[in-house]
Structures are given as C-alpha cells and as structure tokens.
C-alpha cells in the first residue's frame, strides 16, 4: 500500500465504522513512515464528516460513537510514534467531566467525552456520582497547567441540578470560576436551568456541545 492508500484506508475505517481496520491502517502508516500528525489529520477529517452526517440526520448515535471508537483504536500507534519523534500532538486543553452526585447515569456523559477526545481535548473522566469536592479538585489541578480547561457536568435527574449548582458556586468561592468554561447537559437540564446555575454552555445534544466549544476555541 502506498501513502495515499493508507491515508484513505484510515478515512475508510472511520466511515465504515471498522475499529480493527482503523488500528491496522494506523500501524501501517507508522511502518510506512507516514507523518503521524498527517495520519491523525485524516482521521479527524473523517470524524468531522461523520459529525456532519449526524447533524443532517444521515448518521445516528451508534455511528457517531463507533466512529469515535475507531479513532480511539487508531490513535495509540500514531501517538507513540509522535512521542518517539520528540514531538507532541496538539492538545486543545482539558475536559474534566462527570455525572454529578446522586446520579449514576453515564451514557450521555460518555458520548460527550468520546466526542471531545476526537476533537483533541484530553478528557479527565471522573465517572458517576461525583462529589462537588472531586469536581473542584480536578479543575484546580488542571488549570495549573495554563491550558484551556472545560468542565462538563451531566445531570439526568432533577435532584442533581442542585449539586451542579453547588459545583459552580464552589468554583466561584475558590477563585476558579473565570479559569474554566463550564458546560451542563442531560435530561434534567433546560436552557433556563443552565442559565440559573450560571454555566457557560448548555446544549441538549453531545454534538451541540462540541459545536459550542468550537465557537470559543476554534
């Protein structure tokens, strides 16, 4: 396989939702001496294409999540190569994400995390039933690194709204609020609730959250 065939293979793996093929093509790219950053660009191009299909109603959540998983399988050999070259992959920043205390639903949170990973954000997934303290500590830890920092809170059930609001208030009292872009989503949240809680981004869909963040960070 020549360079262009391998690059097209990476794109095809995503568009056909084939993780095994994605991994195989990524390894081939490394063997063939293709610039790993160029290979990652190809994967990103394909993943954005799937995002557009999702927006237009031609692809659906399983496709979106599976495409992201192909990316996850293809990235490690390419990232290893980048590291060995002494370079680093451009990371936009950190996303600290979790489902707030009292709530153990995680599908929505996982979808958001997956989409942000493929957007080149390093995701710190705190899991489910996350306390106010745990959220704040993780944000405090990441803002030290002087990179953009996002906080995503998932709330499927209404009692969790109070918990999310506490997180925002604590960030304020700890002097961290202006250092982090706070997002909120989940079945219990409406735009009004998100506004009252004082968050920066609310989106009813995972892809919508990605779009909103793109508006801020490009």
């Amino acid at each position, binding site marked *: 396989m020549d360079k262009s065939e391998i690059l097209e293979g990476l794109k095809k793996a995503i568009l056909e939702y084939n993780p095994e093929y994605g991994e195989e093509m990524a390894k081939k790219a490394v063997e063939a001496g293709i610039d790993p950053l160029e290979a990652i660009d190809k994967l990103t191009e394909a993943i954005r294409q799937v995002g557009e299909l999702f927006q237009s109603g031609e692809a659906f959540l399983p496709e979106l999540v599976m495409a992201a*998983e192909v990316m996850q399988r293809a990235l490690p050999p390419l990232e290893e190569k980048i590291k060995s070259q002494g370079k680093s992959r451009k990371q936009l920043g950190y996303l600290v994400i979790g489902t707030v205390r009292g709530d153990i639903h995680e599908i929505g949170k996982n979808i958001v995390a997956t989409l942000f990973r493929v957007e080149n954000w390093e995701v710190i997934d705190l899991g489910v039933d996350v306390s106010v303290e745990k959220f704040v500590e993780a944000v405090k830890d990441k803002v030290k690194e002087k990179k953009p920092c996002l906080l995503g809170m998932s709330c499927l059930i209404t009692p969790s709204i109070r918990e999310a609001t506490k997180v925002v208030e604590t960030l304020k009292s700890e002097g961290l609020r202006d250092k982090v872009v706070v997002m909120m989503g989940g079945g219990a*949240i409406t735009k009004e609730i998100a506004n009252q809680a004082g968050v920066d981004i609310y989106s009813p869909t995972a892809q919508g959250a990605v779009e909103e963040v793109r508006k801020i960070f490009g």
Partner: protein
Amino acid sequence: MTLRGHYVRKPVDILDRDQLDRIHQGILEVLEEVGVIFDLENACKILEGMGCDVDYKSKQVKFPSYLVEEILRKAQPSFTVKARNHKYDLRVGGNYLYFHGWCTLATLDLETRRQKTPTRQEYIEACRVLDALDEVHGVLPPYGSIDTKPEEGRKGVIMNEILIRNVQKVCWTTHGSTTNMKAIIEMAKATDQQIILTLSGAPPLRYGENAIKGILEFAKADFPLCTLHGIIYGANSPTTLAGSLVLDNALIIAGMALAQAINPKVGFIPCTYAMAMDMRTGQLVQGSVERGIYSMAFTQMWRRYYNLPSATIVGSDAKYPDYQCGWEKALNTVVQALAGPNFILVHGGIYDELLWSPVVAVIDNEMLKFVARLLEGMRIDDETLAIDLIKEVGPVGQFLNKKHTKEWWRREHVLPNVSDRSSYAEWVENGAKDIIERAKAKTREILEKHEVLPLTEEQEKKISEIVRKYHQIKSSTQL
C-alpha cells in the same frame, strides 16, 4: 416485481365459529328471500342466466343458497393488480395488508380551516404526495372534484389524466359516467396497468345503474372491483352491528355474483364502509369505536370464514387534524389492522368524505409506520436475544458502540419523520412547532424532491390521443 404488504401474523378474531355460521345463514336467507334490486335489465338477465330468480317488474333478483355458496367458492382468493410502475404491483390475498389513501370531496385550507374545492394544481400535488409516501401502497383519487372551467374539457377526463400521469402506484377510481369509466380503462390499458373500481351499491339492497355499468365495464376489462356501500346503522341498515353485517355482506355478494358472471377470474375486494348515525342530529359518524368492532368482524368473516380478500376504511369526525382526528384514526387503524384485512383506506381524510389534506396524509403515513411495526411484533432468535453481547458488555458497559446496535436499531425501532422527539429546549429553539407545521414542511419537501416515473414516449402519445378523443364527447350517451 411486487410490492409486498405488511404481513399480519396471528390476526385477531372477535367472533367464534358459531357466530360466523349464524351470520352466514342470515346472509343466505336474505339473498334467497329478499334478494337485491339491480336497476338495469341487462344485469337481471345475466343473473337469471346464473340461476337467480328475477322479478323483471321490480328488478328484484333473488339468489338461491346453493348459488351463493358456489359464488363464494369460485371467487378469487388472491390476485395481482398491475401498477404503471410494476415494482408497485400489488398481490392481494392471504394475510398481507396494504395501506391506501382515502378519497374525499374537498380540500381543507389549513390556514383558514375552511373547506374548498381543490384547484387542478392542488389535485396534482395531492396525487404526487401520495405517490411519494412509503406507506401508501395504492392511490384512490384524493378529491372527487376539482375546480375546472367547461372550456378545459370533461372534468372526469382531466382528473383521470392527472391521476395516470402523477401516480406510478396502483390507482383506483369511482364509477362516474360511462364515458369517464371507458376513458380511464383505455388510459390504464395504454399504460399497462389495472385500475381498481370502487363500487357503491345503494343499501339496503340495491345497485343503481351507474354502479352496474361499472361492474360490467371493469369486469370485462379484467380490472378489480372493490365495494364501497355506505352502510348507516339504524338508517339504511339495522342499528345492530350483527344485522348490518348480514345486510352489508348480502349486498356485496350480489355485486360479486354479477362481476363473476361477466368474468369468472375478476379480482373482487369486499370492503366495508359502515358508519353510525348520531340519533340526536342525524349526523353521520365516521370515527366511532363501533366501526372498529364492525370492521374486525367483517374482516374475520371474509378473510377467515370465506378465505377471500377484504378491505376496511378509517375515518374521523374532526374538521381539523387535531387530537380527536389523531386518536380516532389511530384507534381504528390499529384494531382494523390487527384483524388482518388486505387493505385499509386511511391517508389524508379528516372529516371523512368531506375534507382531505396532503399534510394529513403525511401525518397518517407516520402513524401507519407505527402500526406496521406493531404488526411485525417481536422477533425472537439468538441474534435478537443478544445473550453473548450482554455477557460481553457486562454490568457497567454500554451498547451504543456495538455493531449489534448499529445493525439492529433501525430494524427494531421506527424512526419518525414528523413526530416530535426532541428535547424541550430544542423544541422551543426550533419555534415550538406542532406536528401540522412540521408535516407542512415535509409536504413541501416531498413536492420539491419527488419524481414520478414519466410516461414512455409511446404511452404519452396514446394518452394524448385518448384525452383528445374523450374531451370531444359531449355526454356518455354518445358511446
């Protein structure tokens, strides 16, 4: 190629064998002792030739029971109806169910909520929307009349031409004048298709001249016939559902007999169009639950007792596509579909025969997707049980990233077009629109995008000649 209907597995019966026998015996008794009036002497002669007793003064035709049994035995249990585009040919029979559009007299202006006579363009658009919708398997002319000027030619011919040009699925027609019937038969033959005739008898027990001519013309052309007698409980038929079932079926079998005498292999579809009457006002009632029960019994009688095709109709009494319209149509469609007829005529009708809208047809199409899914039921096999997958995912994983989900979700779950399933926030953001607004947008999209198979050059030439010929004919007596 044939367009397969939805398969109704395990149709629901509401009568037992003993009850069906009693209804059948009632039908035999009525046909033998009362009979049916045929308002055309020629028809009486044909039926006399079959073995009926005829009183030529009253044109009353009585059917001996052995003859009725023979007619039912000889009727076609299944047959094919050819569409202009043969991939839409229908195979009528068995437990296969087709959905069709319903026909009315006028259109509903959704802005003013007033009834109006449709224009030529509105008729074309209604036909094209029906042609595009995937749960419309055949098309009754959506409007009974359109606004044309006398100098444009015969209205019936104009409407038939529009139907032929704008619909590639199986088309239906009503028995208008003999000229119009001959015109559409010629148009259909020129385009290699069959047209189904809706045949309206006059209950209690009579066929008018036009209906008889319809039977004679269409049976001769080997085009299928479908009964559409307006049975009104307590007015032209007994108020009891069982009594109406006897009378309705006696009238149907008499029409079937005449069609069979002309062409033994003609396709014949017994259809019930029975309605209640509001005894406070005399207003006819279309969306009643009684129609559901009656249609189920009618279907069981024809499909499982006689082993012959059948059709039913869904209507509403609402004057606007509102909540009442929705539940009346959905409730009746579900129960009728579960009984397993071969056709349900449903799309587009609002105030039964009086109002129709392509936007409502779009909404109905979605409702019918849900009904079709209901009929499919639950598939149980190793792949759908997904035990290995459940083990693989374990107690805390997810299924969204599994091939099984990607491959199966569209097959297992209906994806609506115009129903709202967005979040509240998205709904508000998108203008807080109701289903009518969304269906209007979908209708516009269909009209912009849908392409109907064009006529071939040869068909075009033939149709133009037929249209020219029939526009020159001043009245049906000239043929």
